[in-house]
């Protein structure tokens, strides 16, 4: 078997290109900058566009314009940039504009530490939009995931016409790892759906049984309107409460009713295990090491690794926790996703093991929490 050496950010860039992304705009920020570098090397020779914006607000704005013109688009930043994206993220949600947004998380709050990792944005990504609408957030654990989940993020953004986040971490993004290049292939590539032949078209119209409006690009043969204002199916402002409700309920339901289909998890149940570890991102690798060591020393522990963070894979969490006496949520922050797990598992003993000091959580820390927590 041949192996390549690659950092997570390169895998994200390669995944994006494989998924059909031909427009990227970003503003330099450690630890996301190398995505911009890789996209700048890859897109222009493919006839694509890669732009460095004057700031983060512009970078995502370029992407929204290009997406409305029909291109598959991506931008990448870190926590401070997500803050600046926030208003545009709300626009992408309300305007149902497909876009992949990569957050290479670093230690916060605020500018924090540029070269230290954390998973401190996992609630922010979900709730950083005005209106509190649901979003899709995927969390890679390693380089291969970076590629695979980026392809998936594009497919979902196109299918559901919404922003899809990749919640990576400096520790995956800028850590090089050996990877089998044969596994970095986009097996399925999905494009946003145009209206069927002869089908009536309005920019935000759904037909019976549909949750997602068909898409036509700005600049094509039929006039298209896009707006950040509260709108009806025709893309004009509406003040009709019934129409507003129809649109917003549909926008919410297109994500929430798909939660089970969107749920990607890896479940490693251990027979007669007392404890279920729930974790995600780079921390899941320490958790796996801890679980293997404990298994060798005669303490079986079950492990649930979440690749989809939002919508919360509730059914998968419930299913994995059925036989657990205790659930231990391990994450690189001061206790964010543990709230979701507590919400999903009322009555279960849910414990938290976290750390936000710029260092990886070690397998030893997790083992200690399991044995003596």
């Amino acid at each position: 078997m041949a192996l390549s050496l690659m950092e997570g950010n390169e895998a994200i860039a390669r995944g994006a290109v494989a998924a059909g992304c031909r427009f990227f705009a970003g503003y330099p920020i450690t630890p996301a900058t190398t995505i911009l570098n890789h996209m700048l090397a890859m897109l222009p020779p493919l006839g694509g566009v890669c732009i460095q914006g004057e700031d983060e607000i512009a970078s995502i704005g370029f992407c929204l314009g290009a997406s409305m013109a029909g291109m598959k688009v991506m931008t990448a930043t870190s926590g401070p940039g997500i803050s600046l994206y926030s208003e545009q993220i709300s626009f992408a949600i309300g305007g149902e504009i497909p876009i992949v947004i990569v957050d290479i998380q670093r230690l916060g709050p605020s500018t924090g530490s540029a070269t230290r990792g954390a998973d401190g944005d996992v609630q922010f990504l979900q709730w950083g939009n005005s209106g509190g609408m649901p979003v899709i957030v995927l969390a890679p654990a390693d380089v291969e995931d970076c590629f695979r989940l980026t392809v998936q993020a594009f497919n979902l953004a196109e299918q559901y016409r919404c922003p899809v986040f990749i919640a990576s971490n400096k520790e995956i993004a800028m850590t090089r790892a050996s990877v089998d290049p044969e596994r970095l292939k986009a097996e399925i590539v999905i494009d946003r759906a145009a209206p069927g032949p002869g089908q009536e078209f309005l920019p935000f119209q759904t037909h019976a049984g549909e949750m997602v409006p068909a898409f036509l690009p700005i600049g094509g043969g039929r006039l298209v309107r896009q707006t950040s204002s509260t709108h009806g199916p025709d893309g004009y402002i509406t003040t009709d409460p019934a129409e507003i409700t129809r649109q917003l309920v549909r926008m919410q339901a297109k994500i929430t009713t798909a939660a089970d289909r969107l749920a990607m998890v890896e479940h490693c149940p251990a027979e007669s295990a007392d404890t279920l570890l729930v974790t995600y991102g780079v921390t899941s690798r320490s958790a796996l090491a801890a679980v293997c060591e404990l298994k060798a020393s005669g303490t079986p522990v079950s492990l649930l690794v979440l690749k989809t963070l939002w919508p919360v894979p509730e059914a998968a969490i419930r299913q994995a926790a059925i036989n657990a006496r205790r659930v231990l949520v391990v994450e690189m922050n001061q206790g964010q996703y543990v709230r979701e797990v507590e919400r999903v598992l009322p009555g279960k003993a849910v414990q938290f093991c976290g750390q936000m000091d710029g260092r990886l959580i070690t397998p030893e820390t997790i083992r200690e929490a399991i044995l003596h927590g």
Partner: protein
Amino acid sequence: MDSLLNAARPPVFCPGCSHERITHTLDKAFQAMDLDGQRIAMVSDIGCSGLFDTFFNTHALHGLHGRALTYAAGLKLARPELTVVVTMGDGGQGIGGAHLLAACRRNLDMTLLVLNNFNFGMTGGQYSATTPPDAEVGSGFLNRLERPLDVCSVAKAAGAPYVVRCSAYRSDIADVIRRAVEFKGFSVVDIWGICPGRFSKRNRLTTKGIEEMLSRLPPFDGEVAENQRREFGAHYRELAAAQKPVPPPAAVIAQFDPVSIERQEVILLGSAGQRVITAGEILCLAGLYAGLNTTQKNDYDITVLRGPSISEMTLSLQAIDYTGISRPSIVVALGPEGVARRRKMFAGLDETCTVIQAAGVDIPACRAQIHRVDFKDQGFKGTDWALASLGALAKLGRVVRPEMLEAAITSRLRGDILAGALDIVRRVEPSERI
């Protein structure tokens, strides 16, 4: 060509609002250009000027306050054939100032109409970036403290190749707009008008008054000679087409037996500028040549040429989960900053660990096997110590074999640098254990 005005959605501005006049004027300009609606995208933002996109049978994108130029740039880059017209008020121009500057510098072929009426109409007549200090507006005394912005002088200074400042009441305004839209590049038209709903309720402002104000400012009436240059989009596409495609990731096929199949953890402790990260990458590549999984995790400060530079490598036949270093098999001490950052680690090292200590770099006492190497004495520059330390490890038979290392160097480096690097790893002499 027929009017592009949307008969079903007539303008809804206050009676006498200059925006209404500009709406009809813009329609006339489109007609004169013989453009049909499918070839035009109207891009607008927030405020009364943000209603523009709804009045026309064209493509339309209405977005956030001050950000219209950002969407317009994305549309134009994605669809160069589109005619893109942006409307923005003096409010949007103020909040989106960075985008105006960047758009002027960039020079994409599109048109910005600044509908300048010296206040925020929609939110209650607050002062904007263009409100005169002596005006009575909805922001108390605050506008008295700030100087109004000369949009056109700023646009010119930022590199806009086409700038017009004019009154909304100029008789040939449709022609002014048409010429701006037809210009192949970024054109800015700063159109001064009256907001009877807010501004002129408290301030006397007539069309004649606007002419007088304009006459006191430097005139702008089209092409700015010193800013003429290539349009961004066409230039971008030309340069992009000349770029070389990126090859697929280089894949390494195992050619050698690994030194060990146990998990090996190697840490290079150096200082910025010692090429520690490159040496770490080469060690990982060497691992691939022996069929090992490898990871490289780096730790450095945000400054580039100062501070510690640390690279942590794991080599293992098994898949690597945790990428941190807990029990290093090899520690290479190359610079005091790196050693200082990981000072605590030394106490935990045992006899199974090998330390390569560069002469002149102090390390805390530890139980590891220490090999002191005088890189300087052996004639190596500071920038080559990290690579030389890999050569020393290969000669000691730790972690890497000479043939693994040379294969990695050969795959990573080219030309004279390659020859120099091979010479370094062949020439270095690891000292006896001390």
